[in-house]
């Protein structure tokens, strides 16, 4: 059984890795800093480690999907991220594709069940 769990863990990890990007984009219509995003996602049932999220945010910024700004007014300076115009269109397109995947997967899984 241990072996099965291990394999499932690995596959789940791969599965999550692909979905995190969409999840992150979905939450950034309002500016968020890294750790607030971690809590935001975890409140909604998506667990992301900060060690994964922070580099991801930076990558998305580099790709031009996010804009960032340091806020130095608070007690400690925080870097806030926000969807850019490009990020918005990417997110919209991804959402459409995601829904297609969900529909197709539902069909596949239902057929397996019956």
């Amino acid at each position, binding site marked *: 059984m241990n072996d099965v769990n291990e394999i499932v863990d690995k596959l789940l990890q791969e599965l999550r890795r692909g979905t995190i990007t969409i999840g992150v984009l979905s939450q950034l219509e309002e500016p968020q*800093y*890294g*750790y607030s995003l971690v809590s935001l996602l975890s409140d909604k049932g998506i667990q992301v*480690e*900060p*060690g*994964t999220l*922070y*580099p*991801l945010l*930076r*990558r998305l910024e580099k790709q031009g999907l996010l804009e960032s700004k*340091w806020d130095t007014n608070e007690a*400690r*300076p*925080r*870097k806030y991220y926000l969807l850019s115009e490009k990020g918005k269109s990417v997110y919209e397109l991804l959402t459409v594709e995601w829904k297609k995947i969900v529909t197709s997967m539902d069909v596949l899984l239902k057929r397996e069940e019956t």
Partner: protein
Amino acid sequence: MEMIDRYVYAVTRRLPESQREDIAQELRGLIEDMLEERGGVTKQHVEDVLQELGNPADLADKYGGTKRYLIGPNLFDTYMQVMKIVLIALSIGIGVSFIIETIINPQDILKHFTGMLISLFSAAAQGFAWVTIGFAVADRKGETGKKGWKISELPPIPDHNKQIKRGEAITGIVFSVLVLVFIIFSNHLFGVLVFDDGKLNKVIPFLNIENISQFLPYVYGIIGLGLLNECIKLIIGKWTVKLAIYNLILNIVSLGLMAIVILNPEFWNPTFMHELSQLDELSPQSEGYEVVNKIWNGGRGSLLVIIALVTIIDTISGFVKAYKK
């Protein structure tokens, strides 16, 4: 807290300079947020938080830190192959010159042996360094513009006429290295072998041993170009127009360097004919002496012509093979 600084440093030192400060500040903020959530800065909390963030090297990796290898998997096989050939060829060359020296001067065998070890060590170090540098540069150069692929770029199934035989390229490398060894480490043995009673007595060198060092940059250049050429052939593996053009350029440059060296009288042993005339068989009055003298004096030009011819044939055959259907 010191532990946090050390952690942040361990991550950012693996990142490109330009991003370090920004990422460091963000990481610090993250760690403080995580500490706050746990209820403040205590030693235990700091340890927990850093443990949760994980190995700094992995984190830096996720940030897409700089490449942590010198020669990537694409080139590694060829690299190892070329390295082996070069080192083996160096050893053979130095070994052969040790044997010749020992035959000439058997009583000095110990001296020759230490000499061989020293040459072997310094030659191996140089060979290793140059091959590695060459491939490291190739690895970085080759990276650019490597996006996607086209069906037309699929390598064709090797065509016997176009395929570069591994053996050929390897022979080229071995030959280049042997020439290098002989010119640099054993130039005193590169010449006419004089036998006395069936025993090797001495060598009259072709080259001007005292002046050889001023030509070494050229020699290194020529051999380096030769090696580069063979390595490119090994990597590309078949004749293409691009390869034929590389071959043309490298051949022209190395021919130019060779002309500079060969046509310079300083490169050759100035007392060669005088030393030869000391031999019984070739006294200055003999017919043989005249012939040899002619060859020696006119030989440099002819040698260059021969090398040029071979180079031209090599260059043209490259293009012919590349365009052949």
